[in-house]
């Protein structure tokens, strides 16, 4: 890494690379990590990247990423790579795809949508565009932009 911003390797855990600059905190929020959980975490923000210009990186010790979490991460970091580390070695490199459908994770912004008014009606969104993310509610057809996805994740 240039500029000497060095973070040592982790022994076991997960490294999430290629997070868009400034979004590492949102990724932590997706993972439900607020700091009190006790994980050893290295958070690198706004460092140079040949691919992205600038990017964020997260290193989390002793924490695996579940499929559903990985899907959520793609909504705010579509290019992210998830590296599984065991004994200081990357044993698996996952490039998660943005899902075609997202069920139950996000709210529809239309107050008159059935999903905001019936306890059984879970939200269902179809992905219209992957980067930046744009979704459409399968019930009322309201569009959800990346900004709204971020807002909901960070609130």
């Amino acid at each position, binding site marked *: 890494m240039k500029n000497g911003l060095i973070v040592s390797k982790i022994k076991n855990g997960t490294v999430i690379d290629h997070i868009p600059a400034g979004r590492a905190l949102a990724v932590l929020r997706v993972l439900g990590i607020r700091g009190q959980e006790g994980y050893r975490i290295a958070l690198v923000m706004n460092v140079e990247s040949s691919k992205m210009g600038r990017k964020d990186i997260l290193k989390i010790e002793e924490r695996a990423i579940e499929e559903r979490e990985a899907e959520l991460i793609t909504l705010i970091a579509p290019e992210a790579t998830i590296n599984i580390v065991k004994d200081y070695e990357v044993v698996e490199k996952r490039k998660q795809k943005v899902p075609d459908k997202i069920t139950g994770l996000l709210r529809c912004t*239309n*107050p*008159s*949508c*059935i*999903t905001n*008014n*019936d*306890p*059984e*009606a879970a939200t269902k969104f179809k992905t219209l565009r992957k980067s930046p993310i744009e979704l*459409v*509610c*399968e*019930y*009322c*057809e*309201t*569009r959800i932009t990346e900004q709204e996805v971020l807002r909901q994740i960070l609130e």
Partner: protein
Amino acid sequence: MQDLISILDLAKEEVLEIFEKTDALLRGKIRLRLDGKIVSLAFFEPSTRTALSFESAALSMGGRVLGFTSEESISVAKGENLADTVRMLDNYSDCIVIRHKFDGAAKFASEIAQKPVINAGDGKHEHPTQTLIDLYTIKRIFGTPEGLTFGLLGDLRYARTVNSLVRGLKFFRPKKVYLISPPQLRLREEIRNELDYPTEERVDPRDVIGDIDVLYVTRIQKERFPDESEYEKVKESYRVDVRLVEEMRKDSVILHPLPRVTEIDRRIDSYPQAKYFLQASLAVPLRSVLLHEVVGGVEA
């Protein structure tokens, strides 16, 4: 046909087939029967024409009807949710015709029900059976909706009939569609973006009235406005009056899904262009054909 939630659930060929059958029904060439079939009318929101025309359609084919036309009379008033009400109707009938104030309620109902669900208006989303009636009326008058110039006037933002109509017009390649409304009530951008025919936004119908073959007028949907003050700003912001109609071509027509409030002067009713009562009269035969297709009755 299974469910009818959006007008785009139908293919153009299916729309044309419904029109042909409606023609045949009106000419007495076919008889449609629904003996032994039960149609549920689940009107969680008030309705006069839509509910009664579905009821009349089912009864005229020998089918039976059960249901309600307001939330007060059913257990929803006691706090029962939509899903449980739909499950009950699914057990009691062969088809559910649903109207609901929330957008997407009909699709949600269709996911719960095993039986077919027909959307009779869900919030500000869609009203596909009204569009079938609108397009059929245009076909009766002009032979086809193809190549015509339309003026959609009024509340294009909250009127579900407009959403379904602009989508339904994709089947027929109109020459042009003028979207005429106060700026606050313009057609939602995501709907406009999906249209593949020429459209133009206007505020004053007088600028284009001479070009128009079909003037489609809608009521301002007071009940869909997020707040009363927004409604106050636009209420009575347009009106089809004698002066406007005098500028229309004699062979042009005025349609309205009804009910109307003040947006069409009652003196217009006697003008040759006023076709909204003809339009309303076609609701029963068209909905008969549709119900028959969906429920699967006998044809003779």
